[in-house]
């Protein structure tokens, strides 16, 4: 019995360490892509970084004991909720805009492509930036559901089942939104087809 008691805590620690390493790796990998998603949705570098950090913290604090294969859908579900919260907050801020002033009275934020056009640097880098800008604008032009389905399926490589869990919709709906997103993106980027660039 002594032997068993001596062994079990060591095993527990070992398992949790193994899990935390895997979780750390997951977080590091997912952060880069999740930041891109948040940037497309929020168009604010600081806010996007905050939202991703916040979602990762929640995943680690609440769901670290869940099996590793559940982390991705859980994380994207959390991230999605955070982004929706931010959109809501902006709507409320807009209502009270009458009482607040900002230095630049922009009615329409610049498109990604316009931002890319102002860049200076090596020619290839500028060209890559411009292409990324056009793609980001095209993805922004999709409906929110189409955009989510596209980003989760193509950028994150989530399965249909996981995407459906993260988006809280049916699998059929994921497939349809994904298909429409691809069709629309092809239309929008006809002249920028990556195969021809």
């Amino acid at each position, binding site marked *: 019995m002594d032997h068993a008691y001596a062994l079990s805590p060591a095993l527990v620690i070992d398992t949790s360490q193994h899990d935390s390493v895997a979780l750390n790796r997951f977080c590091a990998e997912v952060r880069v*892509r999740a*930041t*891109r998603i948040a*940037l*497309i949705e929020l*168009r*604010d*570098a600081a806010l*996007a970084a905050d939202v991703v950090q916040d979602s990762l913290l929640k995943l680690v604090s609440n769901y670290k004991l869940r099996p590793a294969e559940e982390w991705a859908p859980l994380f994207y579900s959390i991230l999605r909720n955070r982004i929706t919260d931010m959109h809501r907050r902006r709507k409320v*801020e807009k209502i009270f805009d*009458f*009482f*607040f*002033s*900002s*230095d*630049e009275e*922009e009615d329409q*934020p*610049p498109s*990604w492509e316009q*931002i*890319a056009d*102002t*860049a200076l640097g090596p020619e290839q*880098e500028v060209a*890559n*930036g411009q*292409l*990324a*800008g056009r*793609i*980001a604008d095209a*993805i922004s032009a999709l409906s929110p559901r189409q955009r989510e389905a*596209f*980003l989760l*399926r*193509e*950028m994150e*490589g989530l399965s*249909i089942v996981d995407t459906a869990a993260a988006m809280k919709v049916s*699998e059929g709906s*994921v*497939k*349809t939104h*994904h*298909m429409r997103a*691809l*069709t629309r*993106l*092809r239309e929008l*980027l006809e002249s920028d*087809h*990556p*195969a021809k660039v």
Partner: protein
Amino acid sequence: MNPTIPLKFELPESGDIMTTRNHLTSAQIDHYRSGLASAEQAAHIEAHLKNCPQCQQELQFGQQLSQLLAPLPQLAARLPRRSSRTVRWPRVFAAGMATASLALAVFVSVPHLAGSNGAYPGGFDSQSLSPQVADAVQNIEFYQWLSNHPQMLQQGLQNGNPA
């Protein structure tokens, strides 16, 4: 399908009716990629994809777009920074004054609107009450006294003088 193209040219050797000119269309590829294709269609498409690098490339369309988004954080660094929101005090003050004056106007006008003859709204109006109630209201002290002296009520009833 374009009717000017001979039918036998449209059908590849595998008999895949979904292909034209030996290549899958982007619509077919997207249909397959999104998981909407039936098992039979998927099998045909997979058979074609095995030997067609061009269609394989087309299948990667979405993934390629995602990879090309890599410079996005660098672009985001050039986004106009949202300046901190500062309160416009004159507007806040003006709105406060407008609310206060509206509240004052309501406070002043309500009594005038409610009672046209200046009576307290909800108060007794002797003309609108029935005679019994008006009598009770006027002689409330007597009736209170009477309720405390039931023997007097009894005596009055015996004398044929109800109340």
